[in-house]
């Protein structure tokens, strides 16, 4: 799902955009529940079109660019001398001959410079390719939760905390929403909440329950949301298994996408409890590990969140914080 980068729609007198959009959202929820709008079809449509999107072609572009530079490196001083006007061609030929000593001198230096530059570019390209290959070996495994079994964490203990902090006006995102248990509680409490979840069966279950749930990666989804768009954000699941750079990125995105003063609730599994509570497959394949609540608090404060409070709930902790107003 993409989000608007502009204002969410001015409404003039006589036409209430918000009212109609609320009706449309209800219609979508009804149709989803009836199976008319299966999220799996939306995913399939994306995949079908993606097959036609040209693969990244940076290296080939570079090669082509170098080839083009190579072709242009030779400076030809043999200026065309033909002319339709009588006598002009002869004048041009005389001028070319007369200036040849001068132009050849400049052209030789220019060609030498251009050739050396192209050679340097080729060398740079080869070295860059080597670096890219080495980086590919070092890159952490991709966190493709969609490939793993559909297991949702139990967040029931944190419902009241979320409802206490989250506003009932403005859009609130829960990422990852799993099968939608917490999302359902938020919606029932009057919060305008939607969710994203990368695991197909879970998001299908949430959507089948009439919830607005999207099949998407939390980090990618947040990247696409307009700055300051969210009135609240709940993060869970993904925070436990992302690699550290992606965990930091998630917090940066949360700070950017929340409206000033909007709350963030981060529900994290304790590192010790993680290997006990989470299936071995998920633990072994995860590119990262959970962080301690104090570490999350440190990262949140580093991203300039205020009112950071951690609450212990046994195997999980919840941190509440606010984006500065």
């Amino acid at each position: 799902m993409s989000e608007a980068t502009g204002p969410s729609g001015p409404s003039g007198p006589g036409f209430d955009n918000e009212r109609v959009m609320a009706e449309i959202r209800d219609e979508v929820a009804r149709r989803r529940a009836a199976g008319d709008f299966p999220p799996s079809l939306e995913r399939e449509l994306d995949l079908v079109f993606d097959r036609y999107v040209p693969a990244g072609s940076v290296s080939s572009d570079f090669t082509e660019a170098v080839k083009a530079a190579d072709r242009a490196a030779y400076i030809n001083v043999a200026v065309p001398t033909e002319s339709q006007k009588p006598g002009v061609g002869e004048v041009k030929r005389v001028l070319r001959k007369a200036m040849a000593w001068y132009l050849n001198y400049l052209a030789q230096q220019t060609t030498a410079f251009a050739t050396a530059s192209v050679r340097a570019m080729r060398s740079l390209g080869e070295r860059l390719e080597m670096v890219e290959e080495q980086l590919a070996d070092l890159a952490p495994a991709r966190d493709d939760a969609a490939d793993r079994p559909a297991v949702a964490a139990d967040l029931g203990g944190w419902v009241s905390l979320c409802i206490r902090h989250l506003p009932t006006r403005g859009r609130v995102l829960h990422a990852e929403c799993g099968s939608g248990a917490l999302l359902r509680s938020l919606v029932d409490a009057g919060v305008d909440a939607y969710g994203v979840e990368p695991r197909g069966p879970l998001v299908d279950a949430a959507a089948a329950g009439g919830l607005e749930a999207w099949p998407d990666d939390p980090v990618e989804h947040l990247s696409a949301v307009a700055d300051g768009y969210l009135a609240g954000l709940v993060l869970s699941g993904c925070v436990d298994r992302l690699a550290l750079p992606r965990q930091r990125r998630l917090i940066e995105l949360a700070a950017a996408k929340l409206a000033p003063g909007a709350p963030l609730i981060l529900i994290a599994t304790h590192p010790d409890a993680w290997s006990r509570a989470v299936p071995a497959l998920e633990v072994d394949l995860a590119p990262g590990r959970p962080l301690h609540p104090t570490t999350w608090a440190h990262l949140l404060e580093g991203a300039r969140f205020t009112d950071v409070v951690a609450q212990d709930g046994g195997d999980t902790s919840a941190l509440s914080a606010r984006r500065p107003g």
Partner: protein
Amino acid sequence: MTALRRPPDPYVADAGSVRAVHQFLPALMPGDACGIHTLAAQEALREAGFESEIFCEAIHHELDGKGRHFSEFPAWAAGSALVYHLATGSVLADYVNARPEPLVVDYHNLTPASFFRRWDMSVANAVSWGRAQLSMLVARTALGMADSTYNELEMIELDYRRTVVVPILLDVDAETVDVDPATLARLQADKAGGGTDLLFVGRLAPNKAQEDLIKALVMYRRAYDPLARLRLVGRPATDSYQAALDGFISDLGLDQAVTIASGLSDSQLAAYYRTADVLVVLSEHEGFNTPLVEAMRHRLPVIAYASCAVPETLGSGGLLLPDKSPSTVAAAVHRVVGDPALRDELVRAGSDRLAHFDLNASKRRFVNALTFLTGVTV
């Protein structure tokens, strides 16, 4: 021979010394919003008593005589000011930059190159070139003109000192529309067999996201109207993107339901507006979007994704979507097409919004924006 002399920075002539305002744009093409705007601006300038000619790199044969090649512009045009219409990279930018006359840059937006890099590097390079030229012209420009606040903000970010918003000059009078009867008859015959007609008008380009319209059509046909059609009107910006759309349409078995038309005359295009049930715009990037205004002119309800300058152009004249998932778009189309009261409400809202684009008012704004150069107010 008079020696060339540059006026001092910022190239502003004494008010009242300008008697001619000449316009430069890379290509004068029929049906192109930038060309239509330029021709209307010329009319406004001439009506205000200025000499005004249009100079281009390329002129479509249908517009022969409306413009001249820029090489015909005199080496020294005393008492002239220049308006350069910037929407792509062009040698004309370098040309006007080197001229001594006061310069106005009328910015019609550049699609970010990132939209094209995967599809066509030559197009990506052309828009990157244009953006570099937009920066280059800052120091040389007496006035930055933009057809939306969105575009104006881009100019301000680049440090254009004096800027103004003048809506694109379009004839929005519904009474003056000429509709091609043959096209109208053909489209009406299609319609007689049933099915909702969704319309999109604009170049086939990645930033216009025509694939999202096709996805929405799939959902709409599945849930509401199996006979629904999508009509895409516009020239391809890149062959590779059009090939992808063709393949996508074919894979989904929608060859009969999705049609792509390009090279239409104004009257043929009018027939498309007249027979459609709704205009749907799901673009990721728009600096203004003329078809939104055209749809209002043809009393066609509009559904648009709220990106970039779309909310500003549409105002309250249509339904703005905060997201464009296929389900949301399908439900929105159903809501608008299936509810005559809402449809009428949107058409009325569109008609009200049209007042903002009244051609005579916009012409006055265009001419008056130049008052500090010309001393003329209309």
